[in-house]
């Protein structure tokens, strides 16, 4: 029998595909109205996804029930939530064209997992691991947001520097707004990730004792964390702004993405829930 949960997941995915199409069309025909419509469709997708996660959270078997599919869905949910929240503050609908691909990829990956492994094996479940998980996801989602804004900044900057803003330049948000989103993403993402990592570290120190730093995911994560810390420091203290920060944000994100993929496929790690 198809559960109510699955019924909720399907429209979430469908709406996301629809929103993605809308955003791409918006880029293609260079009309921001399409992106505006797509943002509403994405909001619908977000609602369905929220219901899906809510149903999962109240599942009879409790926390044990959470698997890879849920993990990926939460990831997508947080990114979508942050993007939509930002739309109240800024008029950067087109940012969706750069954010939604991530959300869609995560949802498609989630759809690929029927039930999957347990997100957190029963023996490790504690409020610290939950905190670790939620904050790490939120931090990374904010970095994705900063990256998407940076990618747009690089394009817009190129158009303006070449003195040919044209239709594309008119379509993309202003440099000032994009730089501000990058700022917000780094400013909020870094502390969240930091606290998340501390939570994980504290838990690991108690439970595993001495051997935890040998985990490749942990080592890579610290490297990525350091890079983002450096970025935020340069931004706040040294006053790096604009294109330099935009390029570095994209590089940092690629580093983060590649590390995640390399670890996923080449190494054995305790963080192997996808």
């Amino acid at each position, binding site marked *: 029998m198809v559960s109510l949960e699955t019924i909720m997941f399907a429209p979430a995915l469908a709406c996301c595909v629809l929103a993605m199409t809308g955003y791409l069309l918006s880029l293609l025909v260079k009309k921001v109205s399409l992106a505006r419509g797509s943002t509403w469709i994405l909001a619908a997708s977000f609602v369905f996804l929220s219901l899906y996660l809510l149903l999962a959270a109240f599942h009879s078997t409790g926390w044990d029930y959470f698997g890879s599919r849920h993990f990926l869905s939460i990831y997508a949910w947080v990114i979508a939530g942050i993007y939509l929240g930002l739309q109240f503050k800024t008029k950067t609908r087109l940012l969706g064209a750069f954010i939604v691909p991530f959300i869609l990829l995560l949802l498609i990956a989630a759809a690929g997992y029927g039930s999957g492994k347990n997100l957190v094996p029963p023996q490790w479940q504690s409020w610290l691991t939950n905190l670790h998980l939620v904050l790490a996801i939120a931090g990374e989602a904010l970095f994705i947001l900063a990256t998407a804004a940076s990618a747009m900044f690089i394009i817009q900057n190129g158009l*303006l520097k070449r*003195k040919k*803003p044209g239709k594309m330049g*008119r379509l993309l948000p202003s*440099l000032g707004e994009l730089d*501000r989103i990058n700022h917000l993403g780094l400013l909020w993402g870094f502390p969240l990730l930091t606290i998340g990592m501390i939570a994980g570290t504290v838990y690991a120190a108690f439970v595993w004792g001495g051997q935890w730093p040998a985990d490749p995911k942990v080592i890579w994560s610290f490297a990525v964390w350091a890079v983002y810390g450096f970025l935020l420091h340069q931004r706040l203290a040294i*006053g790096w*702004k604009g*294109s330099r920060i935009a390029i570095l944000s994209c590089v940092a994100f690629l580093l983060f993405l590649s590390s995640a993929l390399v670890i996923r496929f080449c190494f054995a790690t305790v963080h192997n829930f996808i």
Partner: protein
Amino acid sequence: MKNMIAVVGLNYKTAPIDVLEKLFAGCSREGNFPAVLKAIPGVHEILHLSTCNRVELVVSTDDDLRVLDLLKSFLVRSGALTNNEVSCIYVHRDEDAIRHLFRVASSLDSLVMGEAQILGQVKEAYRWALTENSTGIILNRLMHRAFRTAKRVRTETGIAANPVSVSFAAVELAKKIFGSLAGKKTLIIGAGEMAELTCMHLIGNGAEEITVANRSTAQAEILAEKYHGRAVGLGTLDEVLCDADIVISSTGAPSYVVTEDMVRRCLRKRKNRLLFLVDIAMPRDIDPAADGIENVYLYNIDHLQDIVDENMKSRRRESLKAEQIVHEEVAQYFNWLKELEAVPTIVSLRSKAEGIVRMEMEKASSWMGSLESEDRDKVEALVNGIVNKILHAPMTAMKEESAEFQSQDIVAAARQLFRLDD
């Protein structure tokens, strides 16, 4: 007699500017001329549109060319036009007149295609005509249709989307760089006219804190005072440059006023905040090498002109779509106008029939009083039914004929047959 809509006038395409000015002044002197014009025999409704680029009379008249000649001679008289200048006057009739007016309102006929002022001017002309009570059913609907067409053209095409003046192009770029201009500081170097115009648009879009730097402080002060800014000499340029977000330079200096080094130093001081430099001077005021610096966006007059040219091209492309909209609207209005021919006759036919029914029912009221009220209603319904059935055929025929503008004969016949003019 058949009705005619006509536009009589001249515009910047047909007449030199001094002729337009002469006529403009002449029309203003004429005083209460809607009344004068309406007194011309054959003129039913009139509207007078007068801007710096055109003087036009929109009229609804009898279908008689002599009326148009009278209107023409009115224009010749008010403008004291010479014989040569009379040839500047054009006359559009019926469909052409409607199309002309719709194109004017939609800014397709303007010097700068897509400009926004003309619609306001047309509306103003109409408002004036309304207070003078010089328009009626035909022109009222014509004007509302013209406004509707203009609105459709603005929203459905990109004809007014992109700036086609250098100063507006600079403002649009500033918005693309900073997002909102609120709180952005503007520095004007050299007190040129173009710089002032750009500055005015920037303020209109929310920019604040104007600083004017000029060789002669006296001139700078005049400009600064106008925009509640402050004036400085060129000596402090280094300092004020660091504070500014938007810099517009238009001095007549033979060499660079702002060097790459100055900009570089500045950017360090302002912690790499974005800086928009506009150089509209010839020869250049700002070293082009400054554009190589990160977070600095330097546009000179040629770059801006390229953008404007590009936008102008896109407006011309959009104007094709706009012409299509005008075409549709003209057809719709013309259809309405055609049907209008038969409408008065249809109305009087109906009211005559209703009058007869009312009279006969009154006559019959003495014996109908003995009927139940339900039966009385039935008799009334029966009578109305018969009348409607009989009138249906002639009324439909008149409507059908009017769609082809050929209803004069049949309308005349109906008036005679039903004795509507007695």
